[in-house]
């Protein structure tokens, strides 16, 4: 038994080494694309001065929720800048946005397919269960082996962790079309594509939006953990503060994380309710 386990370990290690030796160009390519996306989002966020970003966020919060939430959100973002963490806050936001865009671009279509094909759904379920039961920082290890230190590794791990809720809830939403509306579609003579676009999808939108919200929250959690691999942003600030027992800085960074999380959570929930 023991020899079997050590053999298995050796095979995994060898495979990983083989990949780094022979398929480096693939992972270098992936890394370049991921970092390009991250840099572009960060560049956009850092382009305007911090107060302009805070005002825009406040206006969106006002329109989407309430005046109180808008003012509160803007003040909270200004506080992040006042704590000297503006660049880190925006880096974290850029990581979350980039990771979520990639995760949703994969998981929403995949969830739709799973919703339409029960077999695919049954096949995906154990994989998603596995992803969600393993401790999330596990995904940092293979990523760091293949793509090294930096935001690209953080993005890969975050994308993996962020995908399951959106896949599950999208699939659920597509499957949950009330029976009478399926019957209406058939009785009206709708084709399968009309059935999907005109009946199934509109009924699935609230569930899909809830999935997007959940994925975003998972991405947040992971982006902070990914500070260990040099992702930049508030996660790395906290990781550094822990190593030097700098309690004040770690609390400041935590406050900034809470501010960002609350803002994105409430805004995406408001968007979900509107649909």
């Amino acid at each position, binding site marked *: 038994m023991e020899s079997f386990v050590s053999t298995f370990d050796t095979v995994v290690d060898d495979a990983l080494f083989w990949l780094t030796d022979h398929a480096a160009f693939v992972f270098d390519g992936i890394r370049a694309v991921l970092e390009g996306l991250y840099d572009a989002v960060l560049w956009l966020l850092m382009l305007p001065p911090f107060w302009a970003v805070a005002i825009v966020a406040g206006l969106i919060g006002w329109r989407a929720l309430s005046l109180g939430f808008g003012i509160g959100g803007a003040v909270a973002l200004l506080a992040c800048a006042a704590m000297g963490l503006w660049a880190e806050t925006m880096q974290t936001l850029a990581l979350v946005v980039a990771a979520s865009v990639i995760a949703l671009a994969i998981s929403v279509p995949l969830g739709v397919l799973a919703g339409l094909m029960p077999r695919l759904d049954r096949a995906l379920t154990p994989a998603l269960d596995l992803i969600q039961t393993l401790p999330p920082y596990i995904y940092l290890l293979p990523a760091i082996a293949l793509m090294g230190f930096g935001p690209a590794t953080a993005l890969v791990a975050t994308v993996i962790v962020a995908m399951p809720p959106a896949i599950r809830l999208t699939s659920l939403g597509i499957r949950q079309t009330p029976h009478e509306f399926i*019957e*209406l579609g*058939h*009785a009206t*003579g*709708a084709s399968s594509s009309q059935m999907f676009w*005109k009946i199934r999808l509109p009924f699935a939108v609230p569930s899909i939006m809830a999935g997007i919200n959940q994925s975003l929250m998972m991405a947040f959690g992971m982006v902070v953990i990914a500070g260990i691999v040099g992702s930049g942003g508030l996660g790395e600030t906290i990781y550094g503060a822990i190593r030097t027992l700098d309690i004040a800085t770690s609390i400041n960074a935590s406050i900034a994380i809470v501010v960002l999380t609350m803002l994105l959570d409430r805004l995406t929930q408001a968007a979900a309710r509107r649909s």
Partner: protein
Amino acid sequence: MESTEVLIDCQSVWKVFGDRSREAIRSIAERGLTKREILQQYNCVVGVSDATLQVRRGEIFCIMGLSGSGKSTLIRLLNRLIEPSLGTVTVKGRDLSRLDAAALRETRARHIGMVFQSVALLPQRTVLENAAFGLEVQGVPRDDRNRAAEAALAKVGLSDWKTRYPRELSGGMQQRVGLARALTADPEIILMDEPFSALDPLIRRQLQDEFRQLTKDLGKSAVFITHDLDEAIRIGDRIAIMKDGVIIQEGTAEQIVMNPADQYVADFVAGISRLHLVKAHSVMMPVDQWRFQAPGLSLDGLPRCSPEADIDELIGTITGSGSDAIAIADATGIVGVVTTRNLLLGVRGEPDARAAA
């Protein structure tokens, strides 16, 4: 309006549900097993058993039965929402089971509208968009389909509500939109699956009358499912009564009330008022028999009514004239006599047993 052209022809249709329905159907076809034997031997449920019916152009055909009688299954066999296990359903001369997917969609879209008990209005769409849904599916351009939908909404009296959403409408109004949606595509046949069952009694009566009027005005044919015999009588030109998947009787309301096929139907019709249902031709006695019973009296002295006069009208005539008999006359002359005794039997829905004997 009514003609003999058959729009829907349903011949010996069976529907068996269950994992072993194929085997069950084979033994029904080959050995004539009963429903009970099918359940015992194959663990299959017979939803519809050997149903034969014809719906003619311009008529409203009611299928009445309690829950579990198979009426909802039967109506879904008529547009192949459910595949028949055995038998054929022909709509406008085309055997539905021979149609490919595209032709079936086309038939449903153009020829068979459907209205559901649950209404099933799409909540994300306005009333107008819901009413236009059928034409949208057919690929009709927006302006054209909206025009047709507006016309259909006007027919059900909802022109002012077209920009509203379904949740803003009462149950009765929602079902009017459901009817408008079925009318927009201008099909010859409308399938009504217990459309008014969830509405309160007053609104329900109103919609029943409106529906009958509208269907007749537009010259549509309808199959109307209901669990309410009063509703079937109000709306239907002909009524089929279903029990345990079998059509146990089919006929006009008058035929069913006067000659119930079995005790089950008799119990059902027991509480139904005959006043407007039973007509003179069902209760009258032959002229010779009346002459025998009342020698010396002359037919000329009696008030006259047509064979289509209902009991209510006959009672009015008798109480108004002081005579205790009415001569029933059509274009050819006097065809029978209704006495007060005939009238009383008619109110109870019984044919004259003594006359028959």
